[in-house]
């Protein structure tokens, strides 16, 4: 009783946090789970339909494309969004001057509301006066269709996503890099290791846990890509950028089929949960 009274304030804050999680995260998740087995108009009592919503989602013409695009986007985003921030963090870590300024510059895009960043890229990608084609023109290269071609649209979205999110990843990598004892590098140098060998034999092993954690977080985040296709391509051209999350949005708010949207959401959640469980297990074994 005494402990309870002593920690009342702490419990109060805990309750507030639990309340927020329950209302804004757990309740919607449970509600979505239930919704995925129901047909509802949100007015009359919902009707249980078993797996009909899952069947409907799978039979949608864009279902296969949405999953393929999402996987492709995730792989490309990992290739760019995973490697680029790590390299930037390595460079920042090595710098002796203007480190704080450059850190700020790298983090700046994170501070922009995503919608602003996406609209900025809409102008960058404009096939006419857009920045990117102007740059290509300066170096005598032909213009690209960027968002307006099914062969370049997805990678264009990956570039936006990488730019928007690399600041946070870079800072996390940088923090991990700064925790590596300098003696390890000194010893490696004495053994005649060059830059690449130091990265391979000191930096990567020492940041392995953070790298694995970031891998999991990035996959979970990128597989839910929505705002980029929603704002920039509307899922086109030729469905080249329809993602699973975008298709969920279409089900719910274009077709008013909330149950089918819920079913697709459940499928995505199961895939991500399976991946996260596998990843956590690997990480735990690694840490042990």
């Amino acid at each position, binding site marked *: 009783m005494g402990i309870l*009274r002593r920690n*009342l*304030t702490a419990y*109060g804050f805990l309750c*507030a946090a639990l*309340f927020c999680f329950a209302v804004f995260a757990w309740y919607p998740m449970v509600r979505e789970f239930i919704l995925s087995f129901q047909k509802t*108009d*949100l*007015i*009359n009592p919902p009707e249980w339909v078993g797996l009909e919503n899952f*069947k*409907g989602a799978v*039979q*949608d*013409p*864009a279902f296969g494309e949405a999953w393929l695009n999402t996987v492709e986007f995730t792989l490309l985003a990992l290739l760019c969004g995973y490697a680029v921030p790590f390299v930037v963090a390595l460079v920042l870590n090595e710098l002796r001057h203007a480190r704080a300024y450059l850190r700020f510059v790298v983090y700046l895009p994170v501070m922009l509301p995503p919608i602003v960043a996406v609209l900025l890229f809409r102008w960058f990608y*404009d*096939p*006419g006066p857009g920045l990117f084609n102007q740059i290509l023109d300066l170096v005598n290269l032909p213009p690209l*269709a960027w*968002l*307006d*071609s*099914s062969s370049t649209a997805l990678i264009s979205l990956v570039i936006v996503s990488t730019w928007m999110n690399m600041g946070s990843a870079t800072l996390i990598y940088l923090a991990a890099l700064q925790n590596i004892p300098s003696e390890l590098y000194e010893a490696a140098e004495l053994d005649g290791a060059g830059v690449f060998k130091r990265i391979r034999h000191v930096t990567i092993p020492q940041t392995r846990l953070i790298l694995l954690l970031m891998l999991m977080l990035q996959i979970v985040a990128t597989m839910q890509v929505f705002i980029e296709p929603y704002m*920039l*391509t*509307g*899922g*086109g*051209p*030729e*469905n080249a950028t329809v993602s699973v999350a975008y298709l969920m949005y*279409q089900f*719910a*708010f*274009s*077709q*008013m089929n*909330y149950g089918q949207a819920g079913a697709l959401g459940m499928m995505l959640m199961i895939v991500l949960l399976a991946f996260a469980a596998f990843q956590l297990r690997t990480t735990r074994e690694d840490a042990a």
Partner: protein
Amino acid sequence: MQRSTGLLLATVIGLVATGCGSGEPATPSAGGAKAVTITVACQPARTAPKERQAWDDDVATFMKAHPGVTVKSTDQQPCFDPKTFGPKLAGGQMETVFVVPVTNYNDVIGQGQALDITQYTSSIKNWNDLRADARELVTKDGKVYGVPNVLYGVGLVYNRALFTQAGLDPNNPPKTWAEVREAAKKIAGLGSDYVGYGEYSGGNTGGWHFTQAIYGRGGEVLSADNKTAAFNSPEGKAVLQTLHDMRWVDNSMGNKLLIGWESLMVAMGGGKVGMMLGAPDVVTDVVTKFKGKTADYGITALPEAKASLSGGEAYMINPKATPDEVKAGMEWIDFRFNTVGKGRFDFARGKAIGNPVGVPDNAVYGDSPTGKAIQADRVKNASLPVENYQSYVDSAASIAPKAEPMHAQEIYAVLDVPMSAVLSRKDANIDDLLKDAETKVNNLLAAKG
């Protein structure tokens, strides 16, 4: 410790109090009539103070004429937003009287999200003057679910100033697709940033405009029994072939894909797009929302039109409304939206406050006595050059209106693909694209049963 406990208690009490908030109790009106409060959607935004004031004046007039009725307005813009529609209904936040666009009639009525108002239609004094096809659209299994508010057919919106600049006669706009191509070429020839003909390709707007075009050419999207796709036809191919050729042979459509309704409207308002498919409300929106010059825009008949996709909206009633609320809501709809010379048809007031009066953007009353009275009043108080829209008005009577296909949004999403393909790929194979879309729509229809 005590201070912390107090803080915590205050927080808890605050949360509980917020959760326990109750609605206002019903009170009898001063005049003794039964008190009823209704909420009505579509009050103009604060950014349009004159229009908002006119609305508020109408509310005050209505309440004076209907003692006991309190009208509360909401100003969510746009009035109908699919993203918030379902949650508002479920959360008890939906207005008593709300608006629904034609595209969403089937979904809203089919899902029981609008009240059956069959027994209340007599509240609309000119109900029988509303066009029969407009009433048909809000009727299902003999039951009426809405009061048609706006109805129009698609035409060809064009920039008269660009026509003049390109050496074309703005008083003789294109009547065939061959003439559209020629005009588009000349307009695109004005400079690299000029677009002769603008078209959508994504966010379901591509499929929507494909439907407009194929209807115009006399084609169908679905078979008569709604069981199979019918757009893989000579008409469907002609729609895509024309767009492909304009984009890649004539180079008259610019090099940017347009996604979502606003994109083409912005381009049109910018004054560098020559033509687009659109209803008369496009002219109003281009002028009022996208800063186009009033005198520059005209609308004419859809080229070679055999039919025209109907557009518009209807007012519907919240299925949770009580009979008293329904009665008051219907009286509001009658007063504000269906009375000649009053409410939205008070064109003299509209002109005085600077509204664009004169665009034939609503044929919901057709050529009935009410329709004729409204049109005469509109022309009398016109603030826009009505002659710029006359060829559309003349042709509208002879072009059959046609409703959207079943499962419109799902089908539009599929049809976005061939539309974006012909506008983004020179080597797009139209036959393959149509065949693929046909298979997808047939599968979709089979799954929907």
